[in-house]
Structure formats: structure tokens, C-alpha cells
């Protein structure tokens, strides 16, 4: 069930558009944040009801965009390391391997304590400060092993 806060946020998003369907991306984003980082089928059904859409259509929209984690819970800190060209030229693979060793998980996995999920992603638009990663909403740039250690230590 969506929280009242989430429902209010979706109501506000609806005001931006001439029809309800256009708010589907906002609504799914809000629902995902409401659940703490991923979407369950019931969330998409809730969104469908509010937007007067067919649940299949909501599902289809959600499945297209990579940032919706459909039935795929993520840890409290979702670490996404850029693997694209500018980051790769300056050692992204090394950072990814170092991260796997430090967290003792493989890319795509979540630590048993549910603290971290590690993913790789395509270019995040921060190529001049490569290598870089995003943790939840925040960007971390010019990464080195030492910097990665410091960042991880602070994320409880």
C-alpha cells in the first residue's frame, strides 16, 4: 500500500500534465522511493488505479526504464559504478574489482546485511571527473581506492 505521503506526491505530479497517464513515471518513482528502492507488483497496481490505467500498461512503462527496480530489492546503499568509456580509460574496471573485493560481493549482488548493492551502469554524465559512481542519489567523482574506502566507511 502506498503511504499517504506518496499519494499526495502523486496528486501533485498529476497537476503538471493535461492527462493522468503522463504522470506514470513520476508515480512509479515516488512508489519506488516509498518502498525503499524497488517496486512490487502491488505498487504498480496502486499506480494503475490512481492514474486510471491498465496495470499491464504501467508494467510496460516501468519495464522500459532501467532505474525502476522491479521486484528486485536493493540494499540501503545502491552503489552504481560507471563502466563507460571515459571512466574506463581512467580505471573504472579497477574500481569495480576493488569494490567487489571490499564488499565481498559480485557486481549485481547485495551484501547479506542488506547494506550495499553493487551495480555497474552506463555513462552518468560526469566524465570529466572519471572514474565515478553514484550511491543512491549522490555522485562521487575522481575515485581512487582510498576514496572508495572513505566513502564506504561513512555509509552505514
Amino acid at each position, binding site marked *: 500500500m502506498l503511504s499517504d505521503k506518496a499519494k499526495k506526491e502523486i496528486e501533485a505530479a498529476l497537476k*503538471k*500534465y*493535461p*492527462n493522468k*497517464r*503522463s*504522470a*506514470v*513515471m*513520476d508515480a*512509479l*518513482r515516488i512508489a519506488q522511493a516509498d518502498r525503499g528502492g524497488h517496486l512490487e507488483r502491488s505498487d504498480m497496481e496502486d499506480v494503475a488505479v490512481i*492514474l486510471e*490505467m491498465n496495470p499491464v500498461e504501467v508494467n*510496460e*512503462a516501468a519495464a*522500459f*526504464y*532501467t*532505474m*525502476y527496480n522491479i521486484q528486485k530489492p536493493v540494499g540501503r546503499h545502491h552503489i552504481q559504478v560507471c*563502466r*563507460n*568509456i*571515459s571512466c*574506463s*580509460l*581512467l580505471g573504472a574496471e579497477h574500481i569495480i574489482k576493488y569494490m567487489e573485493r571490499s564488499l565481498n560481493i559480485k557486481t549485481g549482488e547485495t551484501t547479506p546485511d542488506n547494506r550495499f548493492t553493487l551495480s555497474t551502469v*552506463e*555513462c*552518468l*554524465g*560526469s*566524465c*570529466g*571527473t*572519471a572514474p565515478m559512481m*553514484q550511491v543512491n*542519489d*549522490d*555522485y562521487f567523482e575522481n575515485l581512487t581506492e582510498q576514496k572508495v574506502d572513505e566513502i564506504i566507511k561513512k555509509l552505514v
Partner: protein
Amino acid sequence: MEKILLKNIDKPESHRIENYIKDGGYKAFAEALKLKPDNIIQMVKDSGLRGRGGAGFSTGLKWSFIPKDPTIPKYLCCNADEGEPGTYKDRAIIDNDPHLLLEGMMITCYAIGAAKSYIYIRGEFVFGANRLEEAIKEAYAKGYLGKNILGTGFNLDMYIHRGFGAYICGEETALLESIEGYRAQPRKKPPFPALAGLYGKPTVINNVETLACIPAIIEKGPKWFSSIGPEKSPGPKIFGVSGHVKKPGLYELPMGTTLRDLIFNHCGGMLRDDRPLKAVVPGGVSAPMLTANDLDTPLDFDSLAAKGSMLGSGAVIVMDESTCMVKAAFITNRFFSHESCGKCTPCRDGTPWLTRVLKRLEHGEGRPGDIELMESLCANIFGRTFCPLGDGAVMALRGALKNFREEFQYHIDHKKCMAS
């Protein structure tokens, strides 16, 4: 050259409207509201401004296609999807000078007669989306947005639409589909968005940097703008440099600056003095790479097209001697197949096939005939796709094969890399 696009980004609290106004901001908008919309369109045409999102289409001409009938609602969509690997210029404006973008959008909306406008920002730019949200609030509070703006009778509302991970949303018609709540798959053209765009209404789609050029064109005049850089491709341009240079970063320079000047003067040269330049991608990964022989090429739309590459987004990716071109091609191609929207077969099936071949080459498992196989796959994709993404994948790979074919062959013959 006096900076206009990056002039504010390093100032403290540059995102605040008071500071923007204190430094002369929103004067151009007030000025524009005194002009006839058609005059503004003419000024932008005369300035020679060409779109900074990649295609380099004349901005004034694009605006002039919008029907004049005041009873038809019209839209402006700002393309802030910034997804072309290597590109990070729009983000600097969004994060640190959001009002420059908003002012450009306001003038554009007035010129084309739009009363509603959306900024399509990629989902990962959460900081930027919040900045824009705040900036829009400030602009409403100061009366630059809303009803009867500055007492002129002009009304304008502005909204943010957040993407959620899909490079294809940067393609303008896919962007419209995405705002309308569908999967972001490109639309058939024609009809062009100028006639039937967002919700079927006349729509202009412009890139962030394009829109950020508009206030200066109003304030300083079209002649000033067109006098910077080459005649057919004028104006200031942000070059975003990444890769193996000493000082990667954003450089606002005249269009037509040479690669050599950019890399060896502005960026301080190669990252390591003992590793010379091997290849440079001049305009985001869709642009075919150039080599050390091409360093005197001016960075502008026409000069790069003449070299068989393109200016694209102006993202310059520099690779030194230590770079494995097979790996670079693999990473680039993997990106395109990952981002293929699945609408047309040549791209949906062809790009992952290329990625599989490149992957085995990169892993030392290449087979004789793999280069020819890739060439034939490229031929079956190029020119046969629904949108330019598939062509971009091919152009990037062909650029690597053309300049570094022997490296690909070496990978096949020796099962390892020439560069390492």
C-alpha cells in the same frame, strides 16, 4: 573570448535568482518581451546558432516552422537528457546556472507562442532536478513565470519531467513519448514535432546549451554571436574533455577551435608525457574517432563532417597509446546494444551480435573472419534503422576499424592485445 555559457558556474551561490539578476540576468527576457516574436525568431536565425544537442540544425529555422495560429497550444521541451557518453556540459549549467537555462527557455516560449514548457531531465540528475525545481519556484515568485509576466499579458508555466534511465529518451520523439507516459520509442517522422509533437501539438525540442545561448543573442545581438568562430557554424561552444589529458573539464571556446589547441593548450596536453595521443573521439561516442593526424581539424559541425566524423555534443574523449582499441570498441558497442530500444530489428538484433563478437575478440577468443563478420553486420544495420541510434553504433565501430584494423587482426591472430 568573453564567456557566456559558463560565466557564472564558479561563482558562489550562482544558482540563486538574486545573484543571477545582480549579474545582469533576466534583462534579456525583459528586452525580448518588448520585441515581436517574429523579430526574435529572425534574430536567432541571423545569429547562425545551430543546435548543440548533436544534429546541428538551425535553431531559428526550427522555431520558424511552428504554426503562428494563436488558438493552437504549443510546447517547448528542453532536452536535458544528456546521455551521450563523454558528455557532461548540460549538467554544469543545470546545477550551477539554472536561471540561464530558464531565461533562454522563457525567451524561446515567447518567440514560438508556447504557454507551457517541460524540461526533460535524466533520472540520475537528482541534484540538478532539485536545483531546477527551486529555480522555477524562484522565477514564479519574482514574476518571470506564471500569468501576465512583467505586465505584458504573456503567460508561461514550466514543469520538470524526470527520466528514469534510458539513453534513447534523448532522441526527441522518444522524449515526447516518455513525457506522455509511454515506453520511449522513437516516432515516425514526418509529421515533425514542429507540427505534431507533444500531445499532438506543435513543439520545439532544444538542447540545454542551445537554449542557454539565447539570452546573449538578444542582449548582444545576432551579429556579435555570428562573428565568433566559423561563418556557417558560429558561436561559443562548450567542449567537455575527458580521458587521458592533464586537465579534463569543460572549456567554453569559440566554435572552430582546433583539437590541438583544445588538448595541448587548454587541457595541458596528454596525461602522461611518455604516452602520445592515439585516438580522439570528437563529439560523444557516436562520432567516429580521429587520430593524431587529424589534430588540426577545427571543432565545428562542417569541418568534422568533412573528416567523416561529427561535432555531436562536443564531448572530446582523448585516448593515449596505452588504450586497447578493441576494448574501447567493445565498451562503446555494449553501450549501444544496452540502450537499443527494441523497436526495429537491425538495431535490436544487430547491435548485441556485434557486442558478442567484440567481446570474444577482447577476451582473446576471436575467430578468423570476425572482422568481416562485423563489417557485414554493420552493413546490415547502417541506413536501415528507425532512428539514428543504430547508425551511431555502426559509425563508431567503423571509425575504430578504419583506423586500427591491424589491432583487431592482432587480437584474432595472437589472442591478446597489441597495446598492453
